[in-house]
């Protein structure tokens, strides 16, 4: 894979340095004067962002979880987050022809309220950062559906200098929908697949992310050279 | 000439003098001329004062051979305005002297006697 070729990515110290280097001015440590005239230090990365790691949330047992999973599968709220060319395939879903609402699928404008995320095509490194952030801000359980070959193996961008090749190195993916691009019908099929997975209790991507957090982070940091954000975005 | 008495002439003249004096005061821009105006004004007043005290055909209020002490009341003019005018003259003199002193100093300050130039204080 492209990102592994460069040995300097493996050097933790270098990562730290790049992070310092790419930190925006407003995120750097600074000294401000409090109203009563004292100097106080503010370190935005620590003070303004929660530093905690994600935690595994175990599912309930037995029939309760089954019922809840059914409910989750029948109420999939998708974060409106368009990445690549595939994002043009999503809006038709709410048109009379495809009408995703009848499957309990709806779009939500904010990750807090969404339970599913669609990575719709090639993901540049820059967008990956945002995708990770949005993914991390969703509530558990959360699901990821990836569209197109670009998310599977890089597709036509496999040797691009700034797109990723395999999405599941960076976040757990529940369903891949193949095609370049997949049509809305394929998306609906993908949703059905996702529903099935949820009902089966296999869509535990969030827990997987939490369990293998370090691995995911390492991968992410390798590819995102200007890593300048907290490890987990609450 | 029966009807016009000395006092009438004096008083009318005095009033005219007063007006002339006032004219000088309000229209002459030279301070010295204004002071002369004041003198005229004062003099006019003094003439009026004396004129007021005059009684036709009577003599000065000095009780000497010319005036009988017993008959004094019928032979003399009113002494009071004369006393008053004396006081008034002296007062006028004092004020004129003061004005002149002021004029002197004012001239020294600005080398001019134009009253218009001394308007440092206004509004």
């Amino acid at each position, binding site marked *: 894979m492209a990102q592994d070729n460069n040995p300097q990515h493996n050097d933790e110290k270098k990562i730290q340095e790049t992070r310092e280097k790419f930190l925006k001015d407003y995120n750097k440590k600074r000294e401000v004067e409090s109203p009563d005239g004292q100097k106080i230090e503010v370190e935005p990365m620590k003070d303004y962002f929660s530093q905690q790691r994600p935690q595994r949330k175990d599912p309930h047992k037995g029939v309760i979880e089954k019922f809840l999973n059914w409910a989750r599968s029948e109420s999939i709220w998708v974060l409106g987050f368009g990445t690549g060319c595939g994002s043009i395939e999503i809006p038709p879903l709410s048109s009379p022809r495809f009408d995703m609402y009848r499957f309990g699928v709806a779009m939500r404008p904010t990750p807090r309220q969404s339970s599913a995320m669609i990575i719709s095509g090639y993901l540049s490194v820059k967008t990956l950062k945002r995708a990770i952030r949005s993914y991390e801000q969703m509530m558990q359980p959360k699901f990821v559906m990836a569209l197109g070959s670009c998310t599977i193996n890089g597709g036509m961008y496999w040797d691009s200098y700034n797109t990723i090749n395999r999405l599941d190195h960076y976040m757990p993916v529940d369903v891949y929908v193949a095609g370049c691009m997949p049509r809305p019908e394929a998306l609906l099929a993908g949703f059905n697949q996702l529903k099935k997975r949820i009902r089966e209790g296999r869509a535990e991507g969030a827990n997987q992310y939490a369990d293998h957090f370090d691995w995911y982070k390492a991968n992410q940091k390798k590819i995102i050279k200007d890593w300048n954000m907290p490890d987990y975005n609450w | 000439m029966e009807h016009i*008495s000395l006092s009438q002439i004096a008083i009318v003249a005095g009033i005219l003098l007063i007006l002339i004096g006032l004219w000088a005061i309000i229209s002459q821009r030279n301070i010295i001329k204004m002071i002369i105006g004041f003198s005229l004004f004062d003099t006019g007043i003094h003439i009026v004062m004396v004129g007021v005290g005059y009684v*036709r055909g009577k003599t000065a209020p*000095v009780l000497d051979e010319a005036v009988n002490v017993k008959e004094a*009341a019928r032979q003399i003019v009113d*002494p009071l305005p004369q006393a008053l005018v004396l006081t008034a003259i*002296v007062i006028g003199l004092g*004020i004129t*002297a003061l004005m002149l002193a002021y004029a002197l100093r004012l001239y020294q300050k600005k080398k001019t006697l134009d009253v218009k130039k001394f308007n440092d204080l206004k509004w």
Partner: protein
Amino acid sequence: MLKKIFFLLVLAGFAVMLFNAYGLSGPDQQLNDVAAHYAEKGPQEVGAANLVASVIVTYRGLDTLGEVTILFLAASIIGFFLKARRDNQRAPKQVRKTSEILETAAKVITPVIFLFGIYVFINGHLTPGGGFQGGAIIASGLVLMLLANPVKKINHNIIRVIESISGFSFILLGIFGLLLAGGFLDNAFLPLGDFGTLLSAGAVPLIYIFIGLKVGAELSGIVSNLQETQKEQI
């Protein structure tokens, strides 16, 4: 022009007022009560042959006191007003020397003038004249002196002493009148003497002497002050 017309209008108004006040009436044919009282009772009450003098010195003595005071006041004011500048004055201006005739004549005439002045105020209660007239005559002598010899310095100390003592004596005489006779400035605390003689009319001659001295001194002071200031380099 407009201004002049306005001045004329104002003066015309003033003239109207004055003529209205006068009323163009002829003079009284007889004395009013007050004047009649002076004429009839004056000789007994005051004992001065010159009724004007009795009015000035006794009946309206307070006015006279005030009048002396005004002169005194003017002299004092001019004294400190003109002096302050003189204290830090430069050298006096060179004045042309006056003629020999004037100087000599002045030397001869001045004592005569002084003598005449003294005569006038000593006889003030008997003949026309009095303290003021006498004082003025004395001052005119001084004027003559100054004209004849412009560089001459008048001794202000003498003037001041004469002024003070005569003024204070005037007041003292007034108080004697209050203590020994009918009231303040009553001349009757001294015997009235024979009517029409020099030593008559009680304190009137005394008062006149002081008035004469005082007026003389004050006028002299004013004149010399003005004259000295004039000598300053302007």
